[in-house]
C-alpha cells in the first residue's frame, strides 16, 4: 500500500499562524502532531512499510508500536478524503 494525497489535497505551511494545515477543495483542517508526522512522510513513493520504518527510526521507537499508530492514522486520513491508497 502506497498512500498519496487525494487530488486537490496538499499539506501547506501556514506561516502566519505557525502551523501546518491540510488544504483540500473548499475545506482545510489542522492535523495533530502525530498525523502531521505521517503526512510529511507521504510522497507517493514510500509505501506503508517505508513510512513505518522512517518514523520508527526518527522517533527511535519499537516498530510494532509505530505500525499500529500509522495504520490507524492512515485509515482516518483516507476516510477524511485527504489520502488515497
Amino acid at each position, binding site marked *: 500500500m502506497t498512500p498519496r494525497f487525494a487530488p486537490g489535497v496538499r499539506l501547506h505551511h501556514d506561516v502566519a499562524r505557525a502551523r501546518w494545515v491540510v488544504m483540500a*477543495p*473548499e475545506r482545510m483542517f489542522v492535523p495533530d502532531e502525530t498525523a502531521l508526522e505521517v503526512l510529511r512522510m507521504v510522497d507517493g513513493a514510500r509505501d506503508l512499510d517505508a513510512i513505518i520504518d522512517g518514523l520508527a527510526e526518527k522517533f527511535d521507537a519499537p516498530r510494532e508500536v509505530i505500525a499500529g499508530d500509522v495504520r490507524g492514522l492512515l485509515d482516518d486520513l483516507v476516510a477524511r478524503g485527504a489520502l488515497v491508497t
Partner: protein
Amino acid sequence: MNAPLALLAELTHRCPLRCPYCSNPVELTRASEELATEEWARIFREAAEIGCLQVHLSGGEPTARRDIVEITAAARAAGLYTNLITAGVLLDAALIARLQAAGLDHVQLSVQDADAAGAERIGGMRGAHARKEAAARLVREAGLPLTLNAVVHRQNLHNLPRLIDIALAWGAARLEVAHVQYYGWALANRDALLPTRAQLDEATQTVQAAREAHRGRLVIDYVVPDYHAARPKSCMGGWGNRFLAVAPSGRILPCHAAESIAGMEFPNARETSLRAAWEDSDAFNRFRGTGWMREPCRGCEHAERDWGGCRCQAFALTGDAAATDPACALSPDRALLLAAVAEAGATAFRYREFG
C-alpha cells in the same frame, strides 16, 4: 483581530452568462478599469503575507481574462491554494492543461438547471449546458478535483434530485446546493426566485437523503435561504474576521456585496496594501466584532455566533447597515422579510443588458 483565511479575487465582471441571480453589483466595472496581471500578483503576495491560505478566482467569469493562466500561476507562486470558480463555457482541454500546469488546485463549476432548456433559459446563454458537461469531463480527465455548484431557487428546485444525479454523472466529488442569496441583481429578481416554504422543506429532505445514499462518493454542502430561517446566517463568519474580497476595480471589500451599502468608502488595492485595509481601514473596522451592535444584537447570546447576520442584507431591506439582519426572528424589521416571502411568485426574469 484575526488574520484572514481566504481571499475572493473577482478578476472581472465580464461573463457570457446572464443569470438572474447574479450577486455582482448592479453597476459593473468595465474591462478597461480591471486590475492588471502584475497588480493581482502583488495582491496575492500581500494576501499570503497577512495569513490567507486560499484564493477563489472568480468574477464574473474568471476565464474571460486572457491572462487567467498567468494569474493562476501568480496565486500559486504566492503559496495560495487556488480555486477556480467558473461557468465552464470558455474552458477547453488546452486551457485546462495550462491552468493545471500553472498549479490550479481545484475547479468549482456552476450549473443552472438539470436540463439544457431550463439551464439555458436561466443562464441566458444558448448551448451553455452542453459546454459545461464537456468542461466537467475535461477537468476530470485532467485529474483535477471538481465541485459542482447548483444554484437553486423557485424555478428549478423541482429538479434538485436530477441535479444530484448530474453531480454524480459528471464526476464531482462535491456538490454545493446553494439557495440564491438576495444581493445585487438577485435582489431585483427576488419575486421570481424566492422558494416557497414547502419547496425549501422538500429540498432539505432531498439533500439529507442524498447525503446518506452517496456517502463516501459525494459530499453535499447546503446553503439555505435565510428568508425562511429564524436565525440569520453568520455572514462571512463575521465582518473583517476571516475573509476579504478584491473587486475587479481593485476595491478591497469585507464581502463581495459590500459596495451595495451606500455611503461606505472602500480602500483600493492600487493605493492601499491589503494589510492596511484589513487592520486600519474604516471600512473593515466599521462592523468588526460586536462593539457596533445595537439592540437586539447588543448583549444577545447569538452575537458572536451569527454577528448580527448580514450587513448588506440589513442595508438592502431596512436602509440601515447597522440594523439587525431582518432574517433574525428578533429583528424589529422582520415583517419586511415576511412580506417578501408572501409576495413572491413572479415567473419572468429580468436579465442584465451589457453596455
